[in-house]
């Protein structure tokens, strides 16, 4: 793309561009979450890496992933309501 001279984009092209941007952001978000989860749950569940992931380790990882998502959603809710409160105080 040559700079952001978008005046000549048709409506359809513009919608495609917006969809692409949204998709890229969603992918980046998912990747961030995956990286964090792997790192955090490896730390919590694998004490001594053995020759394979044993059953209890796999169970721990599964549970850890679910709890990480729970925590993520809780943080999201807490942060949103804080932003809301700060806005009301302004």
């Amino acid at each position, binding site marked *: 793309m040559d700079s*952001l001279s*978008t*005046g000549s*984009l048709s409506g359809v092209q*513009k*919608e495609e*561009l*917006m969809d692409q*941007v*949204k998709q890229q*952001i969603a992918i*980046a*978000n998912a990747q*961030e*979450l995956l990286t*964090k989860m792997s790192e*955090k*749950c490896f730390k*919590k*569940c694998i004490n001594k890496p053995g020759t394979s992931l044993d059953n209890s380790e796999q169970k*721990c990882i599964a*549970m*850890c992933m*679910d*709890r*990480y998502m*729970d*925590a*993520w959603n*809780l*943080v*999201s809710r*807490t*942060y949103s309501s*804080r932003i809301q409160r700060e806005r009301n105080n302004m």
Partner: protein
Amino acid sequence: MSDLSDYSPTKGADSELQDFLLAEKQKAQFHAQIHEFNDFCWDKCVDKPGAKLDSRTETCITNCVERFIDVSLLITNRFAQMLEKGGGMH
């Protein structure tokens, strides 16, 4: 999310795209902040991931996010005062 429903054809193409990108940027920053809080508060609050987040952990995570924001605000304000007094950085 408002999506494309509030598209107004009177606005120029560029300003519509700019609004869209600004909104997406803000959403991305919001998400990045949640990732950061969750990273930090997970380490502080979660011991062994169990079958669900217990209420103690939930309280810890909520407090962790709130206090972290308090600290950022406090430091920002105090830093601003420091700059006003002309002290600190030279």
